[in-house]
């Protein structure tokens, strides 16, 4: 028997059978998902078939560092040692990523600094998904929301809506805070939509702070100064060490950023809506990674619109991504996000009132 198992033909047959079994397993996810207890195994199979998780495995070991990918896109940004660290160049046409910006460096069409009469401005703060990484500017969920609001005319034909997209690739919460406090103010927005995603709150939450420390930029906000002091970071630390030193302060920084954002906007009587935005990933990763953030926002009495169910029930998310293995939604994914956002905004009176400027009875909402 031992010799038989070692023979070429037996080994080839066993290998071929194993490979066929693996191929069958890969195809079994959809069928398993239909079974009463099949969702979890189906989800695990979909995870083994997805490449997205490999982009940022979140493991800091020796071999992961050797195998990590490094990407640089410097030429598309303005760097000026300010707190934001970088933003899109004005009048940018970045063909590879389909990013086009207006004269203010915002994704989307040209706009004016002063708000035209009869226009209600919605400021969108976010990162690459909101900025429409590899999606045309007019196909982003922000642009689609603007179009839908103007088509539905919830405040009558005399009012138009304008979504100003301040999002920029790889921005995290501390940068979004600064957009709200500084950069967006001259445009006088009426309401803020804050894209809360896993980049801003999970593996890369500290990305901006690391850049601030490494480049010797003033942390600007007292709570950040205090956090950096307590964590003992120094500009001589490498990114991995900085990340390790900041790790214990993740939830504190998230909380303080939300509080600061809410306070600043409340002082300007401008409502804030936090939108939980999923990435296109197998295994419900966005939901797992954003665990706790929704509760945090609710505890701070910030209006939350949860879009994390947008891609639920889809085991193979690749057709919704800009390319297989990437976490950014394509035009179809943005359409789904936009439809879900619009539906949920309408279903939540407080959020809808903030968007339209009137509650369901037509009265202006309290700030």
């Amino acid at each position: 028997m031992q010799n038989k198992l070692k023979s070429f033909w037996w080994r080839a047959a066993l290998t071929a059978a194993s490979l066929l079994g693996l191929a069958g397993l890969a195809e079994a996810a959809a069928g398993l998902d239909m079974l009463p207890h099949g969702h979890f195994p189906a989800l695990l199979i979909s995870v083994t078939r997805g490449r997205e998780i490999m982009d940022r495995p979140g493991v800091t070991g020796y071999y992961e560092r050797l195998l990590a990918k490094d990407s640089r896109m410097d030429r598309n940004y303005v760097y000026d040692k300010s707190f934001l660290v970088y933003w899109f160049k004005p009048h940018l046409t970045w063909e590879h990523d389909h990013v086009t910006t207006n004269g203010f460096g915002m994704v989307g069409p040209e706009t004016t600094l002063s708000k035209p009469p009869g226009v209600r401005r919605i400021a969108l703060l976010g990162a690459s998904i909101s900025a429409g990484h590899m999606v045309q500017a007019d196909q982003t969920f922000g642009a689609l929301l603007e179009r839908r609001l103007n088509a539905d005319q919830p405040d009558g034909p005399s009012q138009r809506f304008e979504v100003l997209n301040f999002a920029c690739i790889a921005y995290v919460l501390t940068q979004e805070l600064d957009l709200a406090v500084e950069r967006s103010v001259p445009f006088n927005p009426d309401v803020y939509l804050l894209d809360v995603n896993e980049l801003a709150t999970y593996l890369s939450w500290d990305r901006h702070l690391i850049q601030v420390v490494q480049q010797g930029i003033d942390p600007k906000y007292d709570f950040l100064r205090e956090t950096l002091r307590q964590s003992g970071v120094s500009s001589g630390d490498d990114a991995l060490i900085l990340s390790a030193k900041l790790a214990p302060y993740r939830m504190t920084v998230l909380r303080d950023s939300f509080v600061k954002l809410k306070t600043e906007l409340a002082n300007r009587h401008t409502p804030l809506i936090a939108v939980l935005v999923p990435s296109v990933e197998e295994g419900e990763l966005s939901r797992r990674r954003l665990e706790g953030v929704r509760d945090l926002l609710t505890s701070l009495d910030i209006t939350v619109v949860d879009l994390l169910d947008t891609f639920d029930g889809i085991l193979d998310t690749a057709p919704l991504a800009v390319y297989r293995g990437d976490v950014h939604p394509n035009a179809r994914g943005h359409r789904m996000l936009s439809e879900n956002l619009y539906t949920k905004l309408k279903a939540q009176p407080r959020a809808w009132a903030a968007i339209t400027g009137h509650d369901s009875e037509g009265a202006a909402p309290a700030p």
Partner: protein
Amino acid sequence: MRPTAAGATDLAAAPAGSSSPSAAEAHATPDLRRFLVLSAQLGLLAVVFSLFNLESAGFGKLLVGVFGIFAVHYWVPFRFKEPLWILASMGGAFWVLDPLPAALVIATGFAFFLILRSPVALVWRFLAIGAIFAMLAYSRVFTDRLPIPPAFYPVFGAIFMFRIVIYMYDLAHSSEPAQLLPFLSYFLILPNFYFTLFPIIDFKTMRRSYYQRDIHEIAQQGIQWMMRGAIQLILYRLVVYFKDPYLPDRVDSFPKLLLTMVLTYLTYINVSGQFHFIVGMLHLFGYDLPETNHKYLLARSFTDFWRRANIYWKDFMVKVIYFPVYFKLRKKGDKLAQVFAIIAVFAVTWALHWYQSFWLVGPTTMSANDVLFYTILGLLVLINVLLETGRKRPKQAPTLGSRAIHAVQVLGVFTTVTILWTFWSSPSIGAWYYLMTHWARSHS
């Protein structure tokens, strides 16, 4: 780890060591039925890779290239097989890399060969190679000083940083001069242009194993290892998925800590999976290389772990560090020689891991965790070796008691290596301490 005498190496062009050229040629005799069976399995393997999306764009190219070359290589006469593999590998370099880094790596390889083949004294040849490494290291640090694309350095490092040491070691112990075909087939191999983390293949083993068995047996073994590699790469995704929820500040209970630690250790299957795949690929072309990793999770002692995980690294260290140090000191006592040889092995292992980081990702600081990890692992192996020395275990049929002891030993090694691996994977001692104690502080 008791050494045996190291023999001289044949660097001549004849591509078989223990197996004579005629025997090797006989082992390459084609057989249509077996070829079709091998090809069908490779086709299935490609389907599995596609279904599980294991391939990135570059990997897809590599897979198509390797499987395509195999289909031709299998049928060409024996004397053309190795030249074809070398030419295809060099051509493939331009397929998986941008033209400039590919050309520079190949040109550097030829420059190294010309230096090593030159008639000047060995020491001058080695100094010249060292000078080129020093110049490129300088350029790696100050990237704007030389017009070399950044993509060059990791591939150059992956190909030459370790294997050139083995090659020069064997050259120094050989009566033959450097030969072009063996040199090129050792360094410029297609998978290495894609995989920068590459097993440190031994030159002598590679030459000796070339068509040492029937090609169908060798290739079948390779396909099995490629499948094993694929399964490990698939499982790695699950390891990352289950580890994903546990950022250090989320490890707030002891079970979560245990899970995080075990999963951190299990991330090594990414490396062993890649290594199985790489060596499996080389089997398709007649290189009957040994296994790179062998059931390391079941190691029953620390020396056993050292022998099973990344076996090629262990062999590399034994050849270029352990044996030379041991034989140098043997006259002063066997035990003393072993102690110093093991200390040297782990000191060099640590230094070379830093050196590997330098070439693959760029200048990096030395971490205290690295130093402590190799110090502790080295000490454990040393103690193990000293305890094992002179102790002869009579072969006995396994009993329930001996099986239980075996299980406890495996569990003990697994637990210790898991703790050590978590420590090694932490960015700093402080980060490790935070990870290990956060759960306790969360409950206080």
